[in-house]
């Protein structure tokens, strides 16, 4: 149990440092325009990575069809301009039904 508490404390400290370092050091200085260009594209690149990471897992060990179908449902329903919660509910229903069928 002590090991768990130490790990939690160290991870919290590391997390704080990772987020704090750049803003604390950079201060009020604006970013160079080239950096802004790259940063503007960080969101789609990271989000795509997060979706893939959630769907596949390390070594693609947690790849599963129901989850992928659910994510596709969320994206498909978004094209109809439904609000996000409705899209999520649709994804949950499709995933649950697919889980039940397999």
């Amino acid at each position, binding site marked *: 149990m002590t090991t768990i508490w130490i790990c939690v404390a160290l991870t919290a400290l590391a997390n704080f440092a990772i987020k704090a370092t750049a803003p604390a050091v950079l201060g009020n200085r604006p970013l160079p325009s080239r950096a802004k260009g790259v940063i503007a594209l960080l969101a789609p690149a990271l989000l795509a990575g997060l979706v893939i990471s959630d769907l596949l897992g390390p070594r693609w060990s947690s790849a599963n069809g129901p989850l992928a179908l*659910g994510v596709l449902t969320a994206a498909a329903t978004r094209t109809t301009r439904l609000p996000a919660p409705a899209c999520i509910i649709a994804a949950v229903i499709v995933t649950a039904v697919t889980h039940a069928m397999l």
Partner: protein
Amino acid sequence: MSTVDDIRTGVRRSTALAASTFVLGVTFGALARAHGWGLGAPVVASLTIFSGSAQFALLTVLGSGAAAWTAVASAALINLRFFPMALSAAPALQGGRIRRAIEAQTVVDGAWVLAHQGEGRFNRGVLFGSALAQWPAWVTGTLVGVVLAPSIGLLNATGLDVVFPAFFALLLFDEMRHSRSARIAAAGGAVITAALLLVLPAGPALLGGAAAALLGLRTTNTAQS
């Protein structure tokens, strides 16, 4: 709009995200309890770390019997993505170094995306509001998960395992509407991350996928020339 209005906007726009965060928190709490973390450690972890990906990594690596430093390193690697994210949001933050360092703690995946106004600009109030909505949801969800300890099988059977990736997919969908470069960066991020996941843990794989942002910039320059 004032900062208070922006914070309200951030809270309002994060309602669905907070609900997803709550569900994921329940999953984390239930898993941590099943791994023998007890009642307090999971909740304190959610209070102080406030990162699902890092906490799940910590749980998984410790549960596999690996050394403690490996678990902490894995969690830190996963959260390394917050370095460029906090860097990008830095011009929007205010105050001296200590205050900026504290304000930067509101940089979490969903809040960072919602606060992004395009062209690398961020809305500080929306960032705070979104984090303010998600943090209690994450901690409360963890507490509920620890206390009720629902089986992971039950969470999966009810389809709730899709909540987080689905919400990320929605945010991605909205980001991809901005430009062709965003779509190229997203495609690159997906392909690179998928390939790296075969040989690396999730943290480094995500960082590698983020490098796709460089590909998108190159495409922008080519299109402009």
